[in-house]
């Protein structure tokens, strides 16, 4: 059976509700030394205060400071022993790391030995009291009252001892026994929950990886482009060439299996913009004057991490539902900015078109739904997709993801780029911000 460390704090879901400033010791394994010392730090001052108060009352009643001092000297160690002897023994036992069954027996035994020690302390206290305190009281209340005080009925004595023992048990770790017996189970449950969470995360990551690997170039796009090239080859060979070049760029950018880092679920905004611009470049050759597009993304944001294959969905949508259905065509703008959202910063990437706009009513929209699911899987509530009609016509779709300060990030991105791209000059270089491609 899995055992857990006695020196480390417990996982937060093993113990519940230690909001009080005095409950901190419960964050450690019951009957571990860290637990013991923290508990002692809470309990010892408390019982010391009781002992001092007792002594103060007594010395006030007797009008004698010396007896008060004496009571403090005797009372404080005895009171402290009430609260620590059982737990100290039990902690000692636990750190022997016996097999669980034997440990449990031994811990219970330790608590009862602690109760016995407390009883011994109580006995010493009563001996002290009889020797030092009682005669003084007898002197104070001489006569029958003093006599009665000295000779208590055996039943009363038994009841008093019974109460004492119960108190010693409760103070001396008896309550902690309950927690102790539950702890192993709670810890196992917490471990189980952790494991489930870990597997869930792993599956999530695997799903994302799969989505990326399965990423396809939309068949309609691919075959229509081939049909275009087919029609252009003889009549307009230069345009056919341009289309093939743009298509090759798009395939390379959008199909991860054509890149070195197969199956990577990470990519940069620059890579995703490349996927989109190569797509738009192909569409531009095909649709000629009916499509215009531009990219307005600051150079500084391009190395920011950005999930793969979701921006292209927005661009495909802008073409398919915005520009293509419009007899006059339209303009597509890719833009990015850092937006302040509450106390955090977000990277907002937008695809704006001036096409036919949103059609009111319910719709199916599987592609956009995938975008949302991907964002949720990666960023939870911090990844959003917002789609708004524009008053001037057309649609703006905006993806927001948490913005991470550059620096650490750009280092990694730079390393990745070095590993992926041939030396400068061999590639055409990323177009800079704000270029117009219409």
């Amino acid at each position, binding site marked *: 059976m899995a055992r857990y460390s006695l020196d480390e704090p417990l996982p937060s879901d093993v113990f519940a509700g230690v909001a009080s400033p005095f409950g901190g010791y419960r964050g450690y394994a019951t009957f571990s030394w860290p637990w013991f010392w923290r508990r002692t730090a809470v309990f010892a001052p408390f019982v010391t205060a009781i002992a001092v108060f007792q002594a103060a009352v007594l010395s006030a009643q007797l009008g004698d400071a010396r007896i008060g001092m004496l009571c403090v000297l005797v009372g404080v160690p005895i009171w402290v022993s009430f609260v620590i002897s059982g737990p100290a023994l039990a902690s000692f036992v636990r750190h022997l790391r016996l097999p669980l069954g034997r440990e449990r027996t031994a811990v219970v035994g330790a608590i009862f030995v602690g109760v016995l020690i407390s009883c011994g302390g109580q006995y010493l206290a009563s001996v002290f009291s009889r020797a030092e305190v009682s005669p003084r009281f007898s002197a104070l209340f001489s006569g029958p009252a003093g006599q009665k005080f000295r000779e208590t009925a055996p039943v009363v004595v038994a009841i008093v001892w019974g109460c004492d023992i119960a108190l010693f048990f409760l103070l001396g770790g008896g309550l902690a026994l309950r927690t102790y017996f539950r702890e192993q189970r709670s810890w196992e449950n917490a471990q189980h929950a952790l494991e489930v969470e870990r597997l869930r995360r792993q599956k999530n990551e695997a799903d994302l990886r799969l989505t990326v690997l399965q990423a396809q170039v939309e*068949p*309609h796009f*691919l*075959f*229509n482009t*081939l*049909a*275009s*090239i*087919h*029609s*252009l080859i003889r*009549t*307009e060979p230069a*345009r056919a060439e341009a289309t093939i070049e743009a298509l090759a760029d798009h395939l390379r950018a959008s199909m991860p299996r054509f890149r070195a880092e197969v199956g990577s679920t990470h990519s940069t905004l620059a890579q995703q913009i490349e996927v989109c611009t190569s797509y738009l470049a192909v569409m531009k050759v*095909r*649709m*000629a004057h009916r499509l215009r597009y531009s990219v307005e993304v600051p150079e500084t944001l391009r190395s920011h991490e950005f999930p793969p294959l979701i921006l292209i969905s927005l661009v495909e949508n802008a073409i398919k539902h915005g520009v*293509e*259905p*419009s*007899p006059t065509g339209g303009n597509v703008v890719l833009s990015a900015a850092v937006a302040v959202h509450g106390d955090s910063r977000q990277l907002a990437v937008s695809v704006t078109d001036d096409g036919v*706009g*949103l*059609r*009111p*009513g*319910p*719709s*199916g*929209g*599987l592609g*956009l*739904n995938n975008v*949302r699911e991907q964002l949720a899987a990666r960023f939870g509530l911090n990844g959003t*997709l917002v*789609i*708004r*009609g524009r*008053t001037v016509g057309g*649609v703006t779709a905006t993806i927001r993801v948490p913005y991470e300060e550059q620096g650490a990030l750009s280092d990694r991105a730079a390393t990745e780029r070095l590993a992926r791209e041939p030396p400068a000059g061999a590639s055409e270089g990323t177009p800079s911000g704000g270029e117009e491609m219409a």
Partner: protein
Amino acid sequence: MTRPQAVIAEDEEAQRRKLVELLGEIWPELEIVAQCEDGLSALESVTSLQPAVAYLDIRMPGLTGLEIARAAGPGTHVVFTTAYDEYAVSAFDHGAIDYLLKPIKRERLEQSVARLKQRVGSHSVNSTTIGAVLDALQGRMASRPTLGSIRWITGSLGNITKMFGIDEVLFFQAQDKHVRVVTLDDEVQIRTPLRELLAALDPEAFWRIHRSVIVRAAAIHRIELDVEGKLQLRVKGRTDLLPVSSAYQYRFKPM
């Protein structure tokens, strides 16, 4: 005998030109009377010119090829062209309607022309068959509302149009001639009747609780009685009080 006439509808100029060129070689008698680059002009040409043959791209701006075929007269033989056979026109290969996959191959076009030459001039295809075939095709194509098929709601407020994911929506409330679509911090109006929404929403996720209200079950915060003893419902994070009619109170009976 008069020359057979044809209308060609294809939104990409290069592909249109290529088809015209191929037809000129394979079927020189064919007279191409109109070349259209969008659905609307194609519809106009097909209905007004009543050509013997119509080559229709399925995906076009404005109207789809399927919609145009539906409007074509009984004397017009339709040939669909498509880059990707997502509507499975191939299933109707030997039926009333021919189709060509793009890029269009010469042999395939020759085959199609040979078949058309036999048919042209006859009303060989009865229009009910065509109608049935188009219904079937359109059935494959259309996203007819089925349970749970709604993923997005597009509506407007003033002159701003917004698109909400269905899982953002907390409730729908009919008011006058429109329906309010309410999310945690936003709302729009749509004109789709509740009855239609209900047919396409996931019945587990959305409950009708009143003639005028559909609410997301998971968003229900609490039910309270108003001064007249009627049940009212509050939704998490909103102040709206939604009426619950007696017919739907069974949903909230204590277990």
